[in-house]
């Protein structure tokens, strides 16, 4: 059963210790800045987004999820030449959505994770595009094939990443 509708009491809520809470997003930000220089293919990946989704659906706390997404997004923006807040807003929305979904659904197997990550990657791109075009007036071009392909690649990587990060989960 890929996605299970459960009540809030039935789903497992996880927490993470502080080194993981800080270290995993920091590592994701670092790899996102370092890897594309050596392998340009990695520019298509959004590791901070995957980490945001993972923490969101694991903690199942909307406030925690949106704050995690917000902080990760703002720091990701700080490494670019663009105004700070574009990724911040998009990841805030994704963090909120992922944690809200986590409250309702039990997303533990690979198929469900693939689907959820795919949807959130597309949602993230849409919000990013709207903010960049509407608020910052960046000239961006929307290309469905590119965005879907990037979302699919991110979802595949996300499945493996989530299983790797599962070992750091602590039951509450």
């Amino acid at each position: 059963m890929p996605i299970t509708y459960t009540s809030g009491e039935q789903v497992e809520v996880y927490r993470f210790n502080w080194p993981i809470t800080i270290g995993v997003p920091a590592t994701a930000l670092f790899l996102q800045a370092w890897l594309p220089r050596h392998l340009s293919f990695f520019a298509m990946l959004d590791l901070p987004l995957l980490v945001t989704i993972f923490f969101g659906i694991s903690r199942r706390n909307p406030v925690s999820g949106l704050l995690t997404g917000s902080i990760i997004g703002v720091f990701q923006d700080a490494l670019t030449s663009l105004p700070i807040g574009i990724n911040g807003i998009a990841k805030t929305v994704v963090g909120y959505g992922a944690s809200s979904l986590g409250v309702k659904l039990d997303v533990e197997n690979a198929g469900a994770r693939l689907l959820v990550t795919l949807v959130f990657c597309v949602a993230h791109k849409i919000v990013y595009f709207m903010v960049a075009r509407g608020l910052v007036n960046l000239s961006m071009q929307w290309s469905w094939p590119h965005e879907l392909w990037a979302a699919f690649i991110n979802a595949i990587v996300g499945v493996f990443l989530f299983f790797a990060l599962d070992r750091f989960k602590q039951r509450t």
Partner: protein
Amino acid sequence: MESVLGRYKNLIVLVCVLFAQVLGLAVQVKRTTDTESSRLIRIWAVDSVTPFEKVLNWMHNSSWNIWHNYFYLRGVRAENRGLKAEIERLRLEQIRLNEDAAQARRLQALFAFKEQFISQTKPAQVIGSSGSEQSRAIYIDKGESDGLKPDMAVITADGIVGKVLKVFHSTSQVLLIDDQSSGVGGILEKSRLQGIVRGTRSGEVVLEHIMSDNPVQPGEVVRTSGGDRIFPKGLPVGAVSQVASGPDLFLTIRVRPAANLSKLEEVLVVTKLVEQEPTQLESGSVRAADILAQRLPSVPDKPPAADPSKAGAGEAAKPSAPAASKPAKPAGVSNAPNTNAANPPKPDEKVPPRPQAQASPARAASPSSLTGGLTATAPSALKPATEKGPAPPPVKVVDPTPSAPKPKPAAPLANAPTPTQDGPQ
């Protein structure tokens, strides 16, 4: 009321966080310059990421150097032979270019053009990227402590890379020329058409603002025009890869960057540009006929004494006669060119530039005697710089050759400050 707040707590927090970020965005967008409000966050982010990047970069380079410098030396001899042949070819090319450069300087001096020279560069290593497809920027391991400032040009030996956008304590962010927010003044090498080199959303580089009725051929080289006041004129930008009609009256010209922007390892930051009027080092006695004589094929050299009738003309350009061949001293140039082989200048000694148009007696004499009126026909506006107005600024040039017993072509940019590299090497 409390129940409402409790019920919609998550939503209220979401709206507040989003509102705060939208407000922050609005502040940043309104101010065109880098805002201090966002600078602190950028410093935190950069300082937390770049140290690890530097360490990894150092480890990567060290292992690479050990492997390539001590173990993997296959083909080095063949490469050495190839490089030697290349040096010979480049030397020949340099001689030709020196002639052109000398002529260009003379003409620029006549019209009192101002030139920009790269006076000082700082080598830097690329340590990271912005990690985003929307922002094409890289990080280098030199920053404020190394004298870097925003808007400094960043180049490689192949061509331009971008400009310094943000400077931190020991790192800097460089905006690449393929970023959609970048803009560089460009000029087509052959047709001399000027436009703006911009990046596109997909990371390509295009040359804009070229009217569609202008002929532009694929393969034509694009260079910097100097109009942006960041890049000095003449640096290679890339080559035209595709030309198509644009939506308006302009052409859509795609440019393949000369520097490989996706595989940058080391770059040079231009930390100092010198702008000055080119100096005319020759005396007023240098005539157009003498310049022409250098370019024309001539009869074999004869001893000057063999033809007493041409003694007057030959004496003016005789290299062994110091009074005639020595250029008039520009103000501040204290010494005559050191042509004494017995006292060669030391390699690190600063010596004044050599005369740029020393013709052999035979070459100088015969055409000038035939076309002696050429200099007289020059209009007054084309007077040599030494005759018009203030004296040129004092310039001393480091001559890398220890001795110069025979007349050689002038060193490239002999009147320009010698570019220096400072830094770790």
